[in-house]
């Protein structure tokens, strides 16, 4: 779910080779290049910023904690991370990625040209990754590196297909993320029960997640009974019941997400949504058509109305981005894939009571393995 990101990322982002050894990144890079013909690309120019960096992080572990960075990832040889600013600020950056070659980037095209000049055996055939998030000026500057300013192939779709199927080490990180989410949700519930204000409850949940090693925690909460969600802006004294919250936890580069409703009172809409979520999980098998899943939830909550925040969708892929493809919407032609991880959600409203609940699942060969559930 869309949420508010921070200007500057703080938290344990440094590369931990015990969690993701270099061989993991080497294997990812090899797998990516195996999908791109040699005639199309000999190196990839990868863009990332503090909000959008899934492609960059997947291939290098590097997270731009502030503003943006790029990497050149060749078919053969060591990637190089390109940074803005000054070489005096490289020491923190050296810890972030698993590849230790850093260079200064004053201008993207010059950086590409310099890299090509330094690698005389490499043909100047680039593919681009993650560049949809680039701002107009740096993007135009980057294109100046290529003949006629023509954009090379944007190959993010090829990488996304790889990223969708989670590798064993990725699943370990996601499972741990779900443990953190579970603990944070427990703190949220306990705070709610003990009479904490809405923002205090959310902040305590965030703190609990950080204490367990989360890199980032982003929460949204509702002040209108669960009809809409909002980010923190200032501490509020208000206690709310029901308390609808979205908690997103980042662990070792992987997001997990939970939509939670806490209430001390009977909540028939939540009960109905909970039932719909269970049905959704049961249907989540390889090859399941997304539109059928969405229709199943809509049918299960009838005569209740669809939840306004869900917008007819029942989740999305999740991993290094909070919202990975595919979006599980009612008009989708996608199917669920074995080996992929999804956040599945069900929601409904009767006009007064509203509820959104979710689960993290991995689709296995025979069905969904529930990694975490609000149910």
């Amino acid at each position, binding site marked *: 779910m869309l949420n508010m990101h921070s200007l500057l990322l703080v938290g*344990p982002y440094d590369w931990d080779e015990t969690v993701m050894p270099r061989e993991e990144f080497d294997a990812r890079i090899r797998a990516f290049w195996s999908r791109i013909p040699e005639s199309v690309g000999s190196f990839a120019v990868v863009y990332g910023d503090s909000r959008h960096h899934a492609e960059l992080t997947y291939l290098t572990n590097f997270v731009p904690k502030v503003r943006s960075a790029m990497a050149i990832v060749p078919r053969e040889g060591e990637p190089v991370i390109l940074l803005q600013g000054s070489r005096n600020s490289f020491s923190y950056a050296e810890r972030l990625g698993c590849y230790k070659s850093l260079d200064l980037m004053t201008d993207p095209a010059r950086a590409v040209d310099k890299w090509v000049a330094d690698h005389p055996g490499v043909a100047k055939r680039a593919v681009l990754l993650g560049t949809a998030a680039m701002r107009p000026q740096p993007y135009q500057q980057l294109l100046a590196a290529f003949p006629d300013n023509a954009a090379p192939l944007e190959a993010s779709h090829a990488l996304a297909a790889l990223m969708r199927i989670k590798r064993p080490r990725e699943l370990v990180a996601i499972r741990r993320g779900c443990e953190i989410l579970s603990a944070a949700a427990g703190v949220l519930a306990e705070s709610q029960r003990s009479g904490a204000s809405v923002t205090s409850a959310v902040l305590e949940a965030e703190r609990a997640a950080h204490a367990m090693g989360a890199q980032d925690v982003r929460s949204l909460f509702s002040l209108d009974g669960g009809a809409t969600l909002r980010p923190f802006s200032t501490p509020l004294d208000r206690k709310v019941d029901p308390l609808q919250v979205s908690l997103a936890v980042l662990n070792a580069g992987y997001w997990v997400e939970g939509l939670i409703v806490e209430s001390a009172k009977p909540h028939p809409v939540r009960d109905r949504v909970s039932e719909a979520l269970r049905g959704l999980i049961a249907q989540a098998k390889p090859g399941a058509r997304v539109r059928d899943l969405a229709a199943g939830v809509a049918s299960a909550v009838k005569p209740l109305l669809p939840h306004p925040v869900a917008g007819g969708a029942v989740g999305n892929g999740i991993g290094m981005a909070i919202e990975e493809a595919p979006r599980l919407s009612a008009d989708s032609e996608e199917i669920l894939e074995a080996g992929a991880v999804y956040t599945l959600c069900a929601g409904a409203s009767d006009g007064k009571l509203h509820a959104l609940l979710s689960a993290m699942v991995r689709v296995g060969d025979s069905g969904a393995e529930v990694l975490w559930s609000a149910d």
Partner: protein
Amino acid sequence: MNFQQRFDAIRADMGREGLDLLLGFHDGTHFGGSLNAMMMLSGFRSMGNAVAIVERDGESSLMVSPDWEAGRAAECAPHMSVRGVVDQLPALKEEIGRRGISPDRVGVAGLSALPWEQAKSINALFGNRARAADQLIVRHSKAKTDEEVGHAREATVIAEKGYARMLELARPGVREDDLAVELRWYMKSLGAEDNFLMLNSGPHNKAVQPCSSRKMERGDLLLTELSPIYKGQMTQICRTIVMGRATPEQKRCYQVLIDGYERGEKAAMPGVPMSRVCDAVDEVIDAAGYAEYGKPPYLRLRRRGHGLGFGCDLPGDVGPDNDIVLEKNMVFVLHPNQYLPETGYLMCGEPLLITSTGSEALSTTKAVLGETG
């Protein structure tokens, strides 16, 4: 000046510039330092795509995605009618079509802060004939409204409390990451909706940087920029802490920066170009024998501070080439931070408010070289 007066002034300028419609865009990606045209027109900090639509003589509206953000947007922008939309571009096309305004009389702002393809699509919507209107917003946003000044004061209170907490928590053996996470959380609990929190340590730092997994050691210098944002207004204080007791050399060097700061603060007043403030700092530090360390490669940018805000960071850098003339209610951080060969990088800085007669540091306690004992 209040928000409505600023908004009215922007609208009045639309007529002078031959614009019937002004559109301010943002996509919810917040880096700071760049114009958030939508936020400057609406007061709304979005998570996703949003566009403020200002008619010269008619209604003003705000279009936000996702559509369920409309309620929060309406609270932030009571002067606008708010519409939540699923997909911005078709909805905008319909809005523009309904008005029937010639593209030549449309101003667009904030496109440079959007993803390139989105900016291209918006330009195409007007046949690439809409006019860039960023400066129209910027020139009315360089001085803060009274409300923004109040928020800057509150943000500075939070920053100072954050620093007090930092002095309690910073100890040898503590990881920079852990300290930064705790400080960020603490300042959030005090009302900081976001925070540009730089923090790093070492025996001889070359620059301030984001935190890492490094564990602090006795004798280190811990550098920090604490920059909480309160209701859309960013502040910044810069501080240095010795992990242990400061040496006489460290104290002497730090005093050079303090003296530079004091000279700069005295120079900061209405009617004075920003470059004069920078020169005042440089004169002190250069006279102490550190001129070569106040420029590249030791100092990346020759600047002694920068504008503070969130949607707009004017009056810009406290730099030797910034000729912007200071005005009442401008807010910027003055920080003579720099590398000194005896100690490494040192930091001290306060947020300054330009008053009608001079300047006022928003922090109640100015920087001293901190010690953990």
